């Protein structure tokens, strides 16, 4: 069974799920508007690799209470919040994994605190030299049929190799979101100014992209990070850890490339 609980951060309860009891901590961060449930099919496998796996629900997402000031429109805020989670849990050697805004969040954490990190895997999170600061703020009156929009737009973000039943599950699960939170996340994504600080990242970093999504377009982000590795995966799109049946094995390989000395001790299949 997993352990789960709430951490009081800045006066609000944040939900954290933990699996495994390894000395090394792996923090997993979800995509915009979603929750740690996105890692439900990976968490045990990742724990079997020897990590203490920590899956968070960001403030306002899943089972976490909203932040005091409401929906967050700042990737750096989320990065600081995740660093607080790791501090609260007394993490030893720290590994980070994130997808989409989760990828941006772990890169932001790396730009701030590379010296404390063992390795980072950032998926589907292109960083541009020019941030897009003008996004519409959420208004119920201007956004009809949000559920259908979420469902169909997420189906369009899933790779061509993914079985229809899996794609259906991913898109349906996405419909649980509060779109005010999702929209705020995307505003945060749009205005996130990280390009000039990517060269500050000094910990081993892997940038992963879905071949049916950003594909080779994400290589520029990896090239901006000193020594970073890059891989584009054919037939996969925006949600690699939900789309790839062999995701845990792939993750093990990425970290093995980044930290060969740690790979030998990893278990798992």
């Amino acid at each position, binding site marked *: 069974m997993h352990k789960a609980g709430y951490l009081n951060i800045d006066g609000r309860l944040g939900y954290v799920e933990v699996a495994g009891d390894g000395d090394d901590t792996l923090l997993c961060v979800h995509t915009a508007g979603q929750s740690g449930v996105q890692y439900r099919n990976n968490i045990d496998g990742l724990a079997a690799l020897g990590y203490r796996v920590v899956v968070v629900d960001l403030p306002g997402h899943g089972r976490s209470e909203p932040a005091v000031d409401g929906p967050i429109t700042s990737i750096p805020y989320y990065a600081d919040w995740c660093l607080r989670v790791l501090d609260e849990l007394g993490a030893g050697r720290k590994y980070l994994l994130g997808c989409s805004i989760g990828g941006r969040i772990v890169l932001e954490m790396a730009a701030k605190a590379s010296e404390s990190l063992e390795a980072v895997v950032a998926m589907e999170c292109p960083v541009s030299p020019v941030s897009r600061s003008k996004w519409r703020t959420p208004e119920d009156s*201007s*956004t*009809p*049929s949000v559920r*259908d*929009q979420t469902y*169909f*737009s997420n*189906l*369009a973000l899933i790779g061509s190799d993914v079985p229809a039943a899996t794609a259906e599950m991913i898109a349906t699960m996405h419909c649980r979101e509060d779109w005010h939170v999702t929209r705020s996340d995307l505003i945060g994504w749009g205005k996130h100014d990280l390009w000039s600080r990517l060269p500050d990242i000094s910990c081993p970093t892997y940038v992963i992209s879905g071949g049916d999504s950003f594909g080779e377009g994400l290589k520029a982000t990896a090239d901006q990070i000193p020594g970073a590795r890059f891989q584009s995966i054919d037939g996969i799109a925006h949600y690699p850890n939900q789309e790839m049946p062999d995701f845990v094995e792939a993750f093990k390989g990425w970290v093995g490339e980044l930290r060969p000395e740690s790979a030998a001790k990893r278990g798992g299949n």
Partner: protein
Amino acid sequence: MWKGVASVSALENAAAKGTQPGARGFEDIRVGMVSEAVFSPGSGGAVPQLLPAITQAPPVRDAVLTGVQWEQGARPRSAGARVEGTVTRWKPARKRGRGRVHQDVRLLDADGQVVESASVVWDAPAGTEAQDDDSASRVAWDVGTVAWGKHLAAGLAANEAFASAVQTFDGSVGVRAGEEQVEFRIYRGSIVEVAKKSLDGPTFTVGGSERAWTDLLSSPQNDFVKRTQSNQFRSIGNNFQYLRIFKAVMLMVDEAQLAVAKEASRA
């Protein structure tokens, strides 16, 4: 490219050699047919490069060019290497014994990127039987016409998901493919009229080029959203209502794809 339909070679060699191809007649034309030819650029590198190749290579024997809409592609300065023509519509002409063939013709460079493209219309000799051809095999591809709209509406009549999606809608949905547009008047869950123009005009219209519709209807999935995100389709008019009944739009695309698939399985 297009699967399940034989490729015609009307353009083959013609662009390079300037010969008259005309290997097939009008009765053999089908939407989605692709012809390809190696492209040999003329002297001087004049722009447009594509037009001479088009005029030398009609898709059917004795066809006469009647219209061209030309535009630059994503790589307008690149050297053309290959010409690809795709039939996007065919229909009887007003004059008996003549037919119209619409083509999307693209000049591609060595990387497969579009240098120039053109929407082309040909007038061709056709058998008299073509004049009255309202067969499902033709109409299923004839997006934006009233005949196509009526077939679609008939298919949707028993679709409970569609009825539910438009249960609270009172308006008209336009569908446009190239220059053809049809409007579906919808009220309380039912399509009550299919017409060239609804009385109050469309609430919103979903439109794309004939080539965009050809590609969508021949896709194995309903990837309308992905194609919309890449600007192959757009909606104009009341965008709020477009979003509100977007599921119904997807179901209309499903039905249009189903009609094409049915005809392909019969062929």
